């Protein structure tokens, strides 16, 4: 299978904390790859490195044969890597339509002068982009919120708009950072269906970070497991499910997070709020 994205020995640290340690992985063209791992394993850091939000300290990242390690995020987007964010990052003051149109920006050819005149080519181009956006709106079944301001939408719909914006880039590689957090079962099923449809219809390669193991096992072709910044397992979903290393990482981590959570809880925060 053709390798579309190749990550080689990437390391990233924040001060003394090592977020990624010699991570290597290959993403094949046309697959759905899930990256899983306990909290703080470095999943989002890895996606941020790929999409150019972070610059790794060491290592190489190549997309379709081109080195993208030192490339700014907007150029990576233009190359064909689209992404969504764990904490939704939309223009909350704009409508769904405007959010998607903004994403088309990287495909717009006309310059400032032409767009001010808004005549002939610029106008025609705008119509073309609007058509592309409307197709995404229909695809994601968000016609009813086309003109709604994104800030006023419920969480599940915002997640869908965010996927729409990533699709508006027409990416060949789509990075989805926890697309199903905070959703109910029905919304998750819808989202899973959209992800599979995108994959099927556009042959888009998808890299997915997700916590809901049920969905990961259902839709992923391949799973990579990260823990403490390193790859600890890689393989087909059913192999990963029974991998003792993975089970240990998850269960062990769970205990740690529970205790960490208890100790981190500011016991008097509530009280202080009320008296101040």
């Amino acid at each position, binding site marked *: 299978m053709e390798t579309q994205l190749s990550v080689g020995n990437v390391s990233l640290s924040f001060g003394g904390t090592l977020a990624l340690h010699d991570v290597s992985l290959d993403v094949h063209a046309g697959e759905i790859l899930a990256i899983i791992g306990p909290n703080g394993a470095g999943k989002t850091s890895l996606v941020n490195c790929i999409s150019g939000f972070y610059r790794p300290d060491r290592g190489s990242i190549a997309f379709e044969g081109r080195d993208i390690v030192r490339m700014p995020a907007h150029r990576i987007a233009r190359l064909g890597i689209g992404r969504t964010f764990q904490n939704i990052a939309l223009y909350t003051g704009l409508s769904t339509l405007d959010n998607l149109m903004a994403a088309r920006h990287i495909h717009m050819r006309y310059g400032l002068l032409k767009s001010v005149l808004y005549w002939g080519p610029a106008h025609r181009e705008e119509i073309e982009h*609007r058509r592309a956006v409307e197709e995404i709106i229909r695809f994601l079944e968000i016609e009813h919120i086309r003109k709604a301001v994104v800030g006023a939408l419920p969480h599940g719909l915002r997640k869908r708009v965010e996927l729409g914006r990533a699709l508006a880039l027409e990416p060949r590689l789509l990075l989805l950072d926890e697309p199903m957090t905070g959703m109910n079962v029905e919304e998750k099923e819808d989202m899973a269906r959209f992800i599979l449809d995108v994959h*099927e219809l556009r042959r888009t390669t998808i890299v997915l970070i997700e916590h809901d193991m049920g969905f990961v096992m259902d839709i992923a072709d391949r799973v990579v497991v990260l823990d403490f910044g390193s790859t600890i397992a890689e393989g087909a979903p059913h192999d990963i499910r029974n991998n003792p290393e993975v089970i240990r990482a998850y269960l062990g981590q769970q205990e740690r997070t529970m205790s960490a959570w208890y100790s981190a809880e500011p016991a008097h925060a509530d009280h202080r709020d009320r008296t101040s």
Partner: protein
Amino acid sequence: MTQPVTLPQYWLEKVRQYRGRNKVSARQKDLGIWQRYTWDDEYEQVRDFGLGLIEMGLQRGDRVAILGDNDRQHLWAVFGAMAVGGVVAGVFTDSTPPEVEYIVGHSDALFVLAGDQEQCDKLLSIRDRVPLVRRVIYWDERGMWSYNDPWLVDYRAVQALGRQAIEREPGRFDQLVAEGKPDDPVMFCYTSGTTGQPKGVKLSHANFIGGALSLGTMDRWSDTDNQLSFLPLAWIAGAALDIAPHVVYGTILNFAESPQTVQANIREIAPDTLVYTPRLWETLVSTIRARMLDSAWINRLMYRAFMPVGYRVADYHFQKKPVPPLWRLLYWLGARAVFQPLLSQFGLHKVRVTYTSGAALSPDAIRFFRAMGLPLRQIYGSTEICGGSIAHRPDDIKFESLGRPMPGYDARITPDGEILLTGPGLFLGYHKSLEATESAIYTDETGRRWFRTGDAGHMDADGHVIYFERVKDLIELASGDRYSPQYIEGRLKFSPYIGHAMTFGDKAHNTVTAIITIDFENVGRWAEKNGLPYTTYTDLAQKPQVYALIRKDVEEVNRTLPPPARVRRFVLLHKEFDADEGEMTRTRKLRRSLLTERYADILHALYSDRPNVQVRATVKYRDGRQSAIDTVLRIESLEAVAPAGAWSVKR
């Protein structure tokens, strides 16, 4: 061609009338832009699809089940199947796979039209249990790319088959249309089936045409009328009010972009006809009122100035009195300054035919819309009578009634209070159930056949039919007469001054009585306005003036009732019914048995000739303390009471 007698023949006549004239038949949004489809487009779509079904083996009388949202392909598929002699069985889009299985199986459908991937998946999941189904046809290809199952066929592939057939036999389609007979079944409409399994109601071409012609006698329907098709087409209302008028009058059907965009689409289309449920109309009243509160001061000022004018003129209309010229002038101004602009915000400024159906709509909402210039009218019917059969005429609206029988229809009330209906829409029978058909049909002395609705009602002196509730929920009195608690209580609660009401009557008593609680806020405001001092809820409720106020409302409801079912005596309770004390459920439904027990003394007094009753109320405070309050409650009698003997209650 001779006089059309089937739906496809009417349809074909319209096709010929509009041929080459670029006349719009349907509109639907595509990628956010309204696209228009002409009658020529519709003809080709319908013909190709219908012949495609024939090519796939459909024969006259075979059933085709359809489940999908309302859209143009749905409409074309329905007409295509009907045109070549197929019988359409509609299935609601939100049906579960077992429900789909029941209807597809019961109707012996050979083909199933499943709109999209979601519906196709339902069919795939029940595939083993519907062995008769030869093919499942879908028209929305989204998500269907990876299905490689020959059982599933694309709508366009069926049409391609149809086009091949035309090349072979150009006259085939018109011939198939001409072969239809008016009494052939054309649709199986499955009733919701609150009791047992749904029943397949067989309806003929003549049923639908008769219904549409009757609608057109009451209101002018024309081929420039825009309708927004959002009622499910599997439901009789959708079929009778969207499909039938489209073929009989050539109305333009507009399809909502998605079920969630109906409101926005109504605003864009500004339909000429609109059927809403009471719930939707009432939501609209509160939306309009809320929007006015947020509006600019000048708008609020105009609204406040002209709404009373609207109400005054509305009341003239309801009382069937001529509107004096001054009020007419003021109303004309109000319509231009406030009502029309406001309605246009909701796409309602062009609506001519406005029906409400399904349940009682509050007089408040009816008056509100009449004041704005929209005469909301009740329409009542059932699947077995092919849609509407009783409706209000625009100039003859009574809040409490369903209206009068539509032109060509008749209604009568049996001695035990059941509403019977007959007319051109009377169904052919239930599919595969002769027994149910026989028990649903009543043949009168002249041999005329009537449908037993199972609804209890009353016909007043003006021929208006008033609906009470289901016959089986009526309560029988000692005299053998029956009365409807739900109707009386529901009507009483429409009064702003009444909080709750519980009627009482049973086999031991000859009459109906009621315990009523006042709406403290509204009655309190009324008391302040009328200079009536009061201290507590109990004090206010026992004022003679308040009794007189409530008495008027009770009399108003009594006026709509047959004499034995009227409320003869009532008491205003010293407190409100309280959910904390278990008197009501949390959803504010009365707990009858508990109330009957708790207020046994009051009920006893209501069935005596005493003018009042003493009650001792135990009040439980939040901290657990209890105390008792003694109160004397007045009892109001509405008419001279019958001899005391009839009222006696054995203690």
